[in-house]
């Protein structure tokens, strides 16, 4: 079942895309559907955001005001900076026009005249690929003034980021488009009321928008029956780490994790056993081997294991992996990427990293494990944006689920005086 990464040669070319039914959904919407009908179709399909939060897309669109003189904006989030995620670049490369058509449908549904596609600065190659596709769509009259002879007009621009994980957070992304430091904004007000330049704004993930044309073409009911009922459709699973065939695999939601690893990725590298899998990009709580055997890859199913689908970036680790080293690398990342606005995140990410390193240096104490959990819990929920949670979850849950991995690194003769430890951590 392929909705986005269809196996059609040269689908990235506009003529090939058109001859395979491309832009027919947009034509249909312009001719036969009212903007509200488009929104309703998306709403009824139960499409949920593919950027990690799984928010219902159609519902998000209904938050946009229908009246008022302020211009409205669409931001397409192609920052893709979550470690382990590399799906959007696949869309830019293999099927950019389906994404562009999704953008146009979203603009039509919400009465938007300017859409900005925010792409991480490192994706130089893919920015050029998408720009070429946008240029072709302009030439064919799908974007621009009076599209296809109607009174609907809209423009699509690419905005290149410059290396900041935090700009994948929707309000930081808006600040970055406005030419500012990528600081997340306090919510409320929410973007639908007060977004880019104080105007109503909707932010959608690239993959989310790429699903929309097929929903309009084939109907909400068709889409809602694919995969897991509460989280329907397909996902672009980006599998990396210790598998024989890493890559992006488009599969229905709810596909068992082991099916992805064994049947699609050719099993674990070197015929080893699994030790840990991070199911949705580095901020998601990991799964143990036992959990992997039971896990289905949709948001509701992963909740059972206190995890979440995130961006569906599956990172697989075999039995030889040093879990502590992996967690240190993750903690280092969030420490580096914290924007510094909120004290719990700015300071807490550094504390997590230093305590983890202390354990790695053989100077850990048993009470460090409680300390890590405590610091993580004091970051979680106490920050403006979700980067704090993203930094806290992997530490909290890896320590909980893989406690033995940490305990075995703590010297046996250590004197575990909690008070001393507290004094130490304050230094």
């Amino acid at each position, binding site marked *: 079942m392929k909705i986005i990464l269809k196996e059609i040669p040269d689908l990235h070319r506009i003529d090939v895309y058109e001859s395979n039914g491309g832009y027919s959904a947009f034509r249909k919407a312009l001719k036969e559907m009212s903007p509200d009908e488009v929104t309703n179709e998306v709403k009824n399909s139960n499409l949920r955001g593919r950027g990690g939060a799984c928010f219902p897309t159609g519902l998000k669109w209904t938050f946009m005001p229908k009246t008022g003189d302020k211009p409205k904006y669409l931001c397409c989030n192609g920052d893709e900076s979550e470690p*382990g995620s590399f799906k959007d670049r696949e869309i830019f490369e293999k099927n950019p026009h389906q994404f562009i058509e999704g953008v146009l449908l979203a603009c039509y549904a919400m009465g938007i005249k300017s859409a900005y596609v925010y792409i991480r600065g490192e994706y130089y190659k893919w920015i050029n690929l998408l720009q070429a596709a946008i240029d072709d769509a302009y030439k064919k009259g799908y974007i621009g003034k009076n599209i296809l002879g109607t009174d609907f007009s809209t423009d699509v621009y690419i905005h290149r980021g*410059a290396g900041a994980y935090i700009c994948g957070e929707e309000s930081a992304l808006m600040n970055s488009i406005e*030419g*500012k430091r990528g600081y997340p904004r306090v919510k409320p007000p929410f973007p639908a009321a007060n977004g880019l330049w104080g105007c109503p704004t909707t932010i959608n993930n690239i993959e989310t928008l790429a699903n929309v044309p097929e929903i309009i073409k084939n109907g909400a009911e068709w889409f809602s029956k694919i995969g897991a009922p509460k989280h329907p459709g397909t996902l672009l699973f980006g599998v990396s780490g210790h598998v024989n065939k890493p890559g992006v695999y488009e599969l229905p939601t709810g596909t068992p994790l082991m099916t992805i690893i064994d049947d699609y990725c050719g099993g674990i590298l070197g015929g080893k056993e699994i030790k840990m899998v991070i199911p949705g990009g580095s901020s998601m709580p990991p799964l143990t081997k036992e959990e992997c055997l039971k896990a289905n890859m949709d948001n509701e199913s992963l909740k059972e294991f206190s995890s979440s689908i995130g961006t569906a970036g599956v990172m697989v680790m075999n039995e030889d992996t040093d879990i502590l080293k992996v967690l240190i*690398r*993750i903690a280092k990342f969030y420490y580096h990427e914290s924007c510094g606005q909120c004290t719990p995140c700015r300071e807490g990410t550094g504390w997590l990293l230093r305590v983890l390193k202390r354990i790695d240096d053989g100077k850990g104490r048993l009470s460090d494990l409680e300390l890590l959990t405590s610091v993580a819990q004091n970051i979680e929920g106490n920050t403006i944006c979700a980067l704090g949670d993203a930094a806290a979850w992997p530490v909290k849950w890896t320590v909980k689920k893989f406690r033995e991995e940490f305990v075995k690194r703590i010297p046996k003769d250590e004197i575990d005086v909690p008070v001393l430890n507290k004094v130490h951590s304050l230094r």
Partner: protein
Amino acid sequence: MQLFNEEELKRIEEIKSHYPDARAALLPVLWMVQEKEGWISPDSMKYAGDLLGVPYEHILGVVSFYTMFNKQPRGKYHLQICTNVSCMLRGGYELYNYVSEKLGIKNNETTADGMFTIEEVECLGSCATAPMMQVNNKEYYENLDTNKVETLIEEFSKHIK
């Protein structure tokens, strides 16, 4: 300072028209500065500020926030090696350490001849083709190992001479 020629200034006008507020063109203009100069100097920040009506202090804040904007000159070949988890699992650190030792430079240092800078970078979205290296914020070199990276560096060295 007059950094941009007529054509480039026209391009900037075009970029400004994408946004309701000219200040939003700051990131694209800074990219153009870096493309031309290799880094973003205080003088070029002031120049960009005058073009867009943005105070120097604001630009300094922006340039220092984004890791891809070079705050100092870089080597002709800026080697950006990912060591985040997916790359780490497939030898990202081995690759980084190899290049670092071969060139005799540490993170963010430049070789004495000004040819190479090495930088340890965060995930570049190339996880299935790990380990990898980006060069000069542009080209991706994927599925690397120490042999392949050695050949690449030799190749780059030839271009320099």
